[in-house]
């Protein structure tokens, strides 16, 4: 590649530069363009399970977090068609789990809720599945509330790749897919999870909660109460 010119693709008509190996979402965020996303985390390899970051590349829909950026590609993101698609995906996630924002410790800091507001999701629309997902309060310092799990796998990757503990994994298939912990008892207290683990800090919703601390920041003054996620996600990338 002797070409000195920077490689770029067009995102909604704007030129976005990228480094070799970057995916569309990575390059877009780095350049200050927000594309809604949930399961993507800048410190982990993108895997593309939530599909909220779906864009159109040269007319074909694809997850922008896992699709490599290519020179001269035409990418659409900010269109009504894609907003509708993303709204439906958020509705699917609200339908699948048990999400009660008003009483949730994570309200205001929750990515699912924030992306929902960003996209203008006002109802779950579909008949809620109301799954039966018991809490795990066995660990002295940590509460697991599986009701809120969106199966993003971030805790699985953080525990395996950073903490080297493999505390979390996924089992089941299809709609019965669920988070499990690495213990024959199935209880978190029988795993080596510690509060300083990376896995404690990556959950985009409110599954993994510190015990002994509640509503430390009042609702109404939390992260996404103060500013929409589109601004915050981009600002965060600029700090990095």
């Amino acid at each position, binding site marked *: 590649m002797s070409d000195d010119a920077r490689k770029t693709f067009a995102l909604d008509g704007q030129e976005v530069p990228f480094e070799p190996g970057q995916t569309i979402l990575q390059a877009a965020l780095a350049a200050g363009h927000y594309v809604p996303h949930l399961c993507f985390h800048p410190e982990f390899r993108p*895997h*593309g*399970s*939530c*599909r*909220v970051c*779906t864009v159109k590349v040269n007319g074909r*829909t694809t*997850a922008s977090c*896992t699709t*490599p950026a290519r020179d001269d590609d035409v990418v659409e993101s900010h269109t009504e068609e894609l907003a509708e*698609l993303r709204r*439906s*995906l958020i509705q*699917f*996630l609200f*339908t*699948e789990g048990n999400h009660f924002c008003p009483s949730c410790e994570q309200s205001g800091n929750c990515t699912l809720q924030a992306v929902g507001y960003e996209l203008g999701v006002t*109802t779950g*629309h*579909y*008949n809620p*599945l109301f799954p039966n997902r018991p809490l795990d309060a066995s660990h002295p310092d940590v509460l697991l509330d599986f009701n809120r799990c*969106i*199966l993003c796998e971030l805790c699985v990757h953080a525990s*395996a790749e950073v903490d080297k503990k*493999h*505390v*979390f*994994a*996924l*089992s*089941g*298939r*299809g*709609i*019965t*897919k669920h988070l*499990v*912990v*690495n*213990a*024959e008892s*199935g209880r978190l207290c029988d795993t080596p999870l510690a509060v300083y683990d990376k896995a404690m800090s990556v959950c985009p919703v409110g599954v993994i909660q510190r015990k002994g601390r509640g509503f430390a920041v009042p609702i109404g003054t939390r992260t996404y109460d103060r500013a929409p996620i589109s601004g915050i996600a981009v600002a965060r990338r600029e700090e990095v």
Partner: protein
Amino acid sequence: MSSIVARHRHDGTRLVQILRDVVAAEGYVAPRVITALAEALALPRAHVEGVAGFYSFFATEPRGRFRVLFSGNVTDEMAGSRELCRRLLDSFHLELGEVSRDGLVSVGTTSCTGLCDQGPALLVNGRAIARLTPQRIGAISSLIRGGSPVDEWPKNLLRIHSHVEKRGILLSDQLAPGEALSAAVRRGREATLAELVRSNLRGRGGAGFSTGAKWSACAAAPGEERYVVCNADEGEPGTFKDRELLGGHANLVVDGLCVAAYAVGAQKGFVYLRGEYEFLVAPLEEQLAARRESGLLGRNVLGVDGFDFDIELHVGAGAYVCGEESALIESLEGKRGIPRNRPPYPVTHGYLGKPTVVNNVETLAAAAWIVVHGADAFRAVGTAKSAGTKLLSVSGDVDRPGTYEYPFGVSVERVLADAGARNTQAVQVGGPSGTLLAPHEFQRRIALEDVPSAGAFMVFDRSRDMLAVADNFARFFAHESCGFCTPCRVGTTLNAQLMARILAGKGSRGDFEDLARISKLMKAASHCGLGATAGNPVLDALAKYRPAFDRRLKSLDVLPPFDLDEALAPAREATARDDAGAHFDEEDERVIPGGGYE
């Protein structure tokens, strides 16, 4: 347990095979066994639990010593499988999914077992039994009570028939073992690859990718280690042509795999056989053993210096998604069968990250044929864009169900006539993920340029309820979604729930809109082909058989998703009332036109 792990050389990539052996020995995978396996294989326990929890043949709760699974394909249901299942359940005073109190037997359902030409069918402890009748159910019930192992049951009961109804170039060929491989060696590697490219052979699994291009890309990929895989995970409901090829023409298939190995430079091959075809394991192992004896597998195959190649049989465990090539590779590596992100593609980063070719059974048979007879002879058959023949698995409302081999380009009406179909209302070509054709489309042709098909050809006459057909397919996808991505995981379940509601006469027009919206979302946003096609049967049925839906419809735009009277039941119980005033009267129902519910 330790002997099972030792037999598999403490190799974690063999976890699916190990779990199969555990289930064969103990009936299910107990929590203590998961812990022991994790320790013996040096894997995280949660990983082993995740793999055990993924495949439907690995129960993690106790099951009966005899585990019966009725094939749930629509053709089985049309042939009376539900009634036969009820009969077996009644004979043990059981309900579906329960284990009898003495631990003797449990009965459930499973996805299509690939015996649609001789259904209804079931699996008992993994062994297939076809052509079920009330008499056969009675015999099975007695044999279970007798307690003898399934292997010792009457041969006649366990026999799987071959129904080849029409032979073309593949099914009429009588190549000797190694004949195609010898032809390839005579041609040489480069010329074999070139001949494959020139033949215009395209993958028979449905996607239609050029086989020559795939092999060439793998041969050119950097690295020393290479793999070839025969995809015999024939899970598309209504498809059984690979069963016929592997049963009666395994020589051609195995030779095709050897030719692929020679052409790309692979040292090892796998046959990934779906678990439902366990009855093919012994004959295939015999065939591989005979080839090792005669120098067709092993070191310096056919005396070619440095051509070391052997084949391992890997048996699946009830997961349709593993027919997708990258999910199949994950499963071969002992993992959950989740399709990978691409790029990179398997031809450069496949099994264990090495260059890998994955080909359908029928593709490999055709490749073997091509190296013997040449690309020109192959291209002389079929159409301009679709060279060669296509094996069709014809089932449903026909006089002669079975496997039919036609040159590409055959019309749907010709197949219907040959198979003895009458008063045909619809044909599902390519299975639930394919296309539903109505009578005005029967002149269309089976070919990549018109109606592509991986093989299924399910026929429905005018007595069939097309809504029930679509409902069956919606349930199939909900059961088989791997759950990786949001649209497919949630969408397939919502579709199945909506179809059940409409079928029960509780649907509303709003539900039709939801079905269409969900199906389109899955098509646009899913991670793999399973999700992308999961909405097809519902969309096709809505577009072509709308009256079947409308008949079940209440004349309201929106209905509440729950039964209002049923919702009052706890209140009635609490107040010990059951008078008219404690019941919801449908006449009083006031629904806001255009929808007031959300």
